[in-house]
Structures are given as C-alpha cells and as structure tokens.
C-alpha cells in the first residue's frame, strides 16, 4: 500500500494540473472583455469535463507506464499447487436463451476437466425467469445435462418464485441457502465464459491470500459478429489492457467489482454484503440496482482486499450486438449508477470506493453536462458582437474573434489529445508486441482497425450523449426502468424500427445544424464532427448492426481479436454447442400439462416453492385453461398454473 500512495498523489496532481492549465487558458479567453454569467457557466462545466477526460487520459498513461516498466499489477502470494476449497460457479439467469446458458456450462466444465489437479467446482443455474417458456425450457435442459453427465457433474438448478431484489437478491438467496457449503463463488453473467485454467488460478490465489475477498478477472469482449460488436471487441482488446493496467496500478487492494467474472470469498460476502433497501421510491430509492460497486465498497469498508487481475486472461463476455441494444442496457446501468448518489456518502466507506461510485455516476452525468456546455457555448457565440473593423492606421488591431479562435483552437486540440491520446498510446503498446500485433491481424490491420474505431466512436459519441442525457433527465424526473432480458444474439436491425427510435436524434442534429449555419456560419465548421453523428444516426445504427458487414470486415482482417486468430477452446466450444442446440419444444410450458414425465420433473423442482399468493387468480387461470384450452393462457396465467403444485398434481 505504501508504494501505491505516491502513485495516487502523482495521478491526482497530473489531473489537477492539466485541468488548471486548460481552465486558465479558457479564463484568458473570457477575460478579454470580462466574465459574464454565461461564461462563468461555461468555465464551470468546462472545468468538470476537462478534469473528467484528463482523468481517463492519465489513467491510460499510468497503464502504459506500468506495462512498459513491467510492474507487478497483482502483488499477491502465488497460488498453491492444489486446493481443497469448494467453489460454486453461479449463473444467474433471467429469461435467457437456455441453449446458450447450458452450452456455457458444458464448455466451462470441459475446460475445467482438461486441467490437471483442478479444484472442485459446482455449477448453479439460479433462475429468476418469469417467462413460462424459459422456465420450463431451463428445467428440461437441466434434466438433459444431468442425464448426460451424471450426478457427479454437480450441476444444480434453482428457480426463484419471487424475484426479490433482482440479480443481487438472486445471489443473496443462493448465499443464504447454500453459501455456507462453499469457500468461494464465481459469478458469471449469462454471456460470460471462463477457462478452467483461470478458474483454478483464481481459487489458488484466494487460498494463498486469506485477506482477499474478491478478485476481478476483467473479461475480454468476444464472440459476436455484427460490425458494431466487432468494433467494440477490437476496442476492448486493443485499448482495454492499458486501461485495466492503469486501474490496477492505481487502485491496488482498493479494487472494484464489475458484477461478474469475479471470484468472491463467500463468508466475507455473506457477512458484509447484505444490501439494504434505500429509503424512498425508485429510481433513487428501493432495491439497489447496480449492486456490484456497492458490494465492493462494503467489503473494503470491512477491511477486506479487492484486487483486479488484468493479466489473468481466460475471462470472456459478449458485447451487445447492436448500438440500440447497447443503449437499452445503458438505461438500466444509468439508473443503477445514478442511484449510487444515495450510497456515495455512506458512513465508513474508503475514499477509493467513493471514487469508484463517483466515477460510475459521472460516466452518465457527463453526457448532459457536455450537452449543456455545447448549448451555452452556442448561446454565447450568438451573443458575440460583430467583429470590429480593422483600422488601417498606425495601430493595427486584430478583430476579437480571431484571438478567440486561436485560443479555443489550442483548447480543442488539447481535448482531442486527451480523447484520442489513450487510443494512440494503446495502439503503440500493441504494435510493440509482435505476438499481440499478429493476433489482431498484423500492423496494417491494427492501424486500419484503430482508425475505423476512432471514426465510428466519434460518430457514435453524440448519439450516446443525447441518449444518456435523456436517460439522466427522465431518471431525475422519477421515471424508473423495468427489468428486461437483454438481446444477446446477432441480428440486422430493420430500418423502420431504427428510424422510429433514432429519428429524434437525426431531427435534433438537423435543427441544430440549420440554427448554427444561419446564426454562426463562421463557426459552423467546429460543430460538424459533432453534428455528423446525429445526421447519420439512423444509417449508423442500421449498418453497424449488420452481421454481413461484420463478416466482410473480418474477411479484410479488420477488428480482429486474439480469440478469433489464435482461437479460444472454451469460446469455440460454447459457440459450437449453442449453434448445435435445438429447442426441445416451441412451447415447452405446454409439456408440463401434456407430458406426465415433464410434469413430474417440474413438480420435483417446484418442491418447497411457495404457492401463488392469490388462490382466486390461480383458480381463474385454471378455469380459463379448462374452458378455452392452453392457447388462451397469458404469460401471467401460465406462471400461476406452473407455480400451483397442488393443481398440477390433480392432472
């Protein structure tokens, strides 16, 4: 810890020094004719946002320094040769594609079996599924895998009748029932994978380092084929290593938890990570949505160490397949992070934990701040007096706007360096490693992919800024989001759907362009990079969702990642199994009524689950089924029927 403090002070100094330099230059611009309230607002917003992008820039610079000086980023005692620990691998699922879930289990299990002297792992599918078809399909898939692999495979299935506290409640329910049986648990997402080697290594590290409560294995984005997903995968693979190295270098044992692909010491988690309901109503009160950061903060408060293992490898997840899916996921994450405003000032939290929470909040709040900065800047430009005439006399005077442009040009250049510098640094670091360069398709492919990613992320930024701003405003106005299953499979989005969703972005872009062109034609050029993304919002979303364009990019070696060039057994196996998977039935819930064997399985798995709360509703559902047949049942009717063990036994 003693060696981390000077790093943090230096980091803080560099962020503050960069911000002070930027703000001073801005003050210099405004002081030419005094500072008005609008200019004061611009200065305040500029200072916050400049510090925000400077913090990312210096984080990556520190990451590059750590990589080049080969600093040990995970200074833990090495893992023991063998482990007697029991570890549960948890897959919390919520209306997910069952083929993918069970293919992942098979692939991970096979990967574990390939490792000599691997520790014991049990698998838990922890279902919160509310869709009756998903629920019964999960039961059938579980039975199938149990039959094929036998009881020794230790693959368990539990369906929760009431989804209290969403995913955090799902994990808590596991801990409260079976947590005491295990030393560690590894949390996976429905689209995560980890290799047996990595899992064994994590268990060994936990054994050797008893003060450690959690080790986060940063997942690499892999496995999707749309152009959007491939660009995200490349960005994560090319830029991620410096970013995670920077984080690990600065945070040390004050690490964070990203909600999955992490190993957790169960007794520490059970003792300190019971989450309270926040006072008030959603979106700010109620159940904690983004539980991971809060759990990490609670573990740190209790004195446990949390580490990130940036070089451990063998940890994967899939990106959202389209920009639309990415933004849908962000709605939930935005609410979860804004809710942390109620947590960030909690008593006893360590300062780094507060910073993790604050940075999560800022990653969404920065969008409306950027938007506000742009709007106030435009209003300020509109209020500029006309440039004074240049006197042709003994005392030449430049028009004021020329001085503005020169000063602002320097500031914009500084911001471009802060925004694109980390990418450039990451590409240089990548090109220095011949193996990594080959894994990304070679020098030419890396350069072209990085350029393509830079252009795409520039076009995407204003769309994301508008969308995040909308999310923040609606959440502040008190609109809470629901809990929807994510779309995880590749699909080309239809034009009419995208046009409906992204027409507002395009219209805002066109309207802003017309206004700017009419009123500040001289400065219009400054705004073109921002406006272009909005003008093109619809084609950007449609084209980037295309798996065909993704495939064409791959054929040209663009946006390649190591799991594609070198291959990853666990990823390839999981995908092959998922591709070969066939659904057992289009409407598996009907089988519970029609097939006695399926009904018996369902009743066995239902054993001990609480009966539905309202018997009248159950009776109504059964009546509807008897009079009009199963086709007349709604999803909620099916849930009632499937939850009614007594009724099912009478069939």
């Amino acid at each position: 810890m003693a060696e981390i403090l000077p790093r943090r002070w230096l980091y803080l100094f560099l962020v503050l020094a960069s911000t002070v330099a930027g703000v001073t230059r801005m003050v210099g611009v405004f002081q030419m004719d005094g500072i008005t309230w609008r200019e004061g607002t611009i200065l305040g917003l500029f200072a916050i946002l400049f510090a925000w992008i400077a913090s990312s820039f210096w984080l990556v610079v520190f990451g590059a320094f750590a990589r080049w000086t080969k600093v040990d980023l995970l200074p833990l005692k090495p893992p023991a040769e063998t482990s007697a620990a029991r570890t549960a691998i948890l897959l919390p699922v919520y209306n997910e594609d069952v083929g993918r879930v069970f293919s992942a289990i098979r692939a991970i299990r096979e990967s574990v079996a390939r490792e000599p002297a691997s520790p014991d792992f049990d698998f838990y599918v922890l279902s919160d599924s509310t869709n009756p078809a998903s629920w019964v399909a999960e039961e059938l898939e579980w039975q199938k895998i149990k039959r094929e692999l036998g009881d020794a495979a230790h693959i368990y299935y539990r369906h929760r009748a009431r989804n209290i506290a969403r995913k955090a409640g799902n994990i808590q329910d596991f801990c409260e029932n079976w947590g005491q049986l295990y030393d560690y648990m590894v949390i996976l997402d429905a689209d995560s994978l980890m290799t047996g080697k990595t899992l064994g290594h994590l268990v060994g590290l936990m054994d050797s380092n008893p003060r450690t409560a959690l080790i986060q294995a940063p997942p690499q984005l892999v496995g999707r084929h749309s152009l959007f997903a491939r660009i995200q995968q490349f960005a994560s693979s090319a830029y991620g290593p410096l970013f995670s190295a920077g984080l690990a270098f600065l945070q040390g044992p004050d690490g964070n938890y990203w909600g999955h692909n992490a190993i957790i010491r169960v007794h520490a988690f059970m003792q300190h990570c019971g989450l309270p309901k926040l006072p008030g109503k959603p979106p700010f009160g109620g159940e904690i949505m983004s539980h991971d950061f809060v759990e990490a903060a609670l573990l740190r408060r209790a004195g446990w160490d949390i580490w990130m293992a940036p070089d451990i490898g063998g940890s994967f997840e899939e990106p959202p397949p389209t920009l639309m899916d990415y933004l849908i996921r962000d709605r939930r994450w935005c609410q979860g992070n804004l809710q942390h405003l109620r947590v960030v000032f909690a008593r006893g939290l360590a300062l780094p934990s507060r910073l993790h929470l604050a940075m999560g909040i800022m990653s969404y709040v920065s969008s409306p701040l950027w938007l506000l900065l742009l709007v106030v800047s435009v209003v300020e430009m509109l209020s500029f007096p006309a440039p004074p005439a240049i006197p042709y006399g003994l005392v030449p005077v430049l028009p004021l706007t020329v001085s503005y442009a020169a000063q602002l040009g320097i500031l914009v250049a500084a911001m471009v360096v802060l925004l694109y510098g980390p990418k450039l640094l990451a590409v240089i670091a990548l090109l220095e490693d011949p193996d990594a360069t080959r894994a990304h398709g070679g020098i030419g492919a890396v350069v072209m992919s990085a350029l393509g990613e830079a252009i795409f992320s520039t076009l995407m930024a204003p769309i994301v800024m508008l969308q995040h701003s909308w999310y923040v405003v609606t959440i502040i106005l008190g609109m809470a989001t629901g809990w929807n299953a994510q779309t995880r499979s590749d699909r080309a989005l239809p034009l009419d759907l995208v046009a409906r969703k992204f027409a507002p972005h395009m219209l805002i872009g066109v309207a802003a362009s017309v206004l700017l062109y009419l009123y500040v034609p001289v400065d219009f050029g400054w705004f073109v990079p921002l406006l272009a993304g909005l003008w093109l919002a619809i084609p950007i979303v449609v084209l980037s969702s295309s798996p065909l364009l993704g495939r064409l990019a791959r054929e040209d070696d663009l946006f390649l990642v190591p799991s594609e060039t070198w291959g990853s057994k666990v990823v390839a196996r999981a995908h092959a199994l998922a591709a070969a998977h066939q659904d057992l039935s289009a409407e598996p819930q009907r089988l519970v009524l029609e097939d006695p064997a399926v009904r018996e399985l369902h009743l066995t798995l239902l054993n001990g689950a609480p009966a539905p709360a309202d018997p009248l509703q159950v009776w109504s559902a059964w009546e509807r089924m008897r009079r009009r047949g199963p086709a007349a049942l709604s999803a909620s009717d099916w849930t009632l029927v499937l939850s009614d063990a007594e009724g099912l036994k009478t069939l």
Partner: protein
Amino acid sequence: MDSQSRAFEADAAPLNTPLPCPRRMVPQSLAPVTPGRLLLKLLLALTPAPLERVPAVIKRRRG
C-alpha cells in the same frame, strides 16, 4: 477452509440442489455521513488524541 463438505454427502440424487444450510445475510447500513459526524471527525483529526492523553495527565498529577 470453511466449507461444510458433509452437506454434499446428504445430496439425494433426484434433488436439484444440495440440502440448504440456511443463514441470513444481514442488511448493512448505508446511512450517509451527517455534517455533525463530519465535524466530530475533523475535530478529532485536528486534536492530537485528546482522550488518550487524559490518563497520562492524571497519572502525572497523582505522581
């Protein structure tokens, strides 16, 4: 190791999970820092351990 391995021996074949071994997780407090507490912390930080000094002063006077 704090796992209770014996629970697995009781695992009956048709069951979907091992037998539960229930233990409640207690909700932790996330009450915010109040200005009063902040002030107290600040005072304590500025005053070099006053409470620890008290016994030493008493001892000196007695001696």
